[in-house]
């Protein structure tokens, strides 16, 4: 009875991506990024794409790989401070960049998935982020009108998933993945572990399968750590 979204692997997941499309990619820094899908997008050489992602990877990993091959025309992000190639392309004008507050980015993705075309937020009022946007006062405080974001494809990474597309994320690798899963016209979920239908507790699912169109078990996760910080053993 359940609707199956299970596909053979990353090649089938990305088979119909096209030049010029808009992609959402989950993750915060390198935490919770769809590593397999990014590799495949690099391999396919799809170009002129717009990427909506909180960060832009590092120079040689994550979205940095797409940047290095100049596949990205425009980035919509909140923080891109870990990537020299990014900075170079941006300052030289090769790369179009739309920087938006992190909370507005998260909420705009959720809004896109939830059928809410626009909402008001105090974030960015009085800054260049609000330029050209409607400002309205609520409770004596100015707010900026922000619009929903959607994407042709959303690529998300989860810890566990089932054939129905139900997803569970681990720790802080959840971050932007659930909202982007909601906002993709086609949402591709790669998971560390694809478990049998019925083995996930329906109380514990973070992303209901209705938001996911394709799911597969990813391979060879590197899960790189950007800032390895440790305490002294007491």
């Amino acid at each position, binding site marked *: 009875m359940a609707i199956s979204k299970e596909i053979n692997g990353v090649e089938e997941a990305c088979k119909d991506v096209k030049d010029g499309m808009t992609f959402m990619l989950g993750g*915060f*820094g*390198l*935490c*919770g990024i769809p590593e397999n899908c990014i590799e495949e997008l690099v391999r396919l050489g799809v170009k002129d794409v717009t990427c909506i992602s*909180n960060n832009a990877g590092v120079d040689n990993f994550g979205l940095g790989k797409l940047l290095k091959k100049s596949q990205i025309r425009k980035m919509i*992000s*909140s*923080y*891109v*401070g*870990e990537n020299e190639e990014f*900075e170079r392309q*941006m*300052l030289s004008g090769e790369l179009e*960049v739309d*920087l938006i*507050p*992190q*909370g*507005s*980015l*998260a*909420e705009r*993705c*959720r809004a896109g998935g939830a059928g809410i075309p626009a909402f008001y*937020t*105090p*974030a*960015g*009022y*009085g*800054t*260049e*982020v609000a330029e050209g946007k409607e400002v309205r006062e609520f409770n004596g405080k100015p707010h900026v009108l922000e619009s929903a974001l959607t994407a042709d494809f959303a690529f998300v990474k989860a*810890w566990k998933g089932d054939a129905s597309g139900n997803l569970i*994320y*681990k*720790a*802080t*690798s*959840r*971050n*932007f*993945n*659930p*909202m982007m899963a909601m906002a993709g016209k086609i949402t591709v979920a790669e998971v560390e572990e694809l478990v049998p239908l019925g083995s996930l507790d329906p109380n514990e699912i*973070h992303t209901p399968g209705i938001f996911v169109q394709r799911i597969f078990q990813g391979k060879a996760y590197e*899960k*790189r*750590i*950007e*800032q*390895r*910080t*440790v*305490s002294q*053993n007491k």
Partner: protein
Amino acid sequence: MLDKNGIARRIAQEVQNGQYVNLGIGIPTLVANHIPEGLDVEFQSENGILGMGPFPIEGTEDADLINAGKQTITALPGAVFFDSATSFAMIRGQHVQLTVLGAMEVSANGDIANWKIPGKMVKGMGGAMDLVASAENIVVAMMHTNRAGESKLLSTCSLPLTGVGCVKRVVTNLAVMDIKDGAFHLVERAPGVTVEEIVNATDGALILPDLVPEMSL
């Protein structure tokens, strides 16, 4: 004069029992090390954790468990993970009671600039614009002057703003300043720092009280 850890130690005194606190990258992160024993405080990191603990013991790092500075961290008992929309619901909805963040410039009317130097550096605002637009209680942690020796406490910010009229208190290596009525109000001076040094290092309007106590750390 305070070092970075000293600034963090002074800011730790601002933290009250029962508060949820968001600490920015840099000096603010150090504040967690100086919270007095017995104070019940929970740290929120906007990438999706409440109840953030210390860095992990070597060998137990988990790539899936980081803070907003992308550092490996731990989760304390009672911790909870959530998505970015929920995280900023906490911030925008004013459930986080204290925000500590760094700045490149602060103005005498409470404006803050910390995300962009046009033509030179653009890292992005991350969650800072949401934090400063929402929090009731914003403390800025920074050095009083930049590397060129110029004041970072100005009458008007010269860099692109992160938020307007939002900063209530600034703690620097030289002083604690409150911001109200369009001026900096000197509250405390750092150990061994004279009022004259603070006056010289401050560009924006500065109100001096009759007596300026030295910080007790």
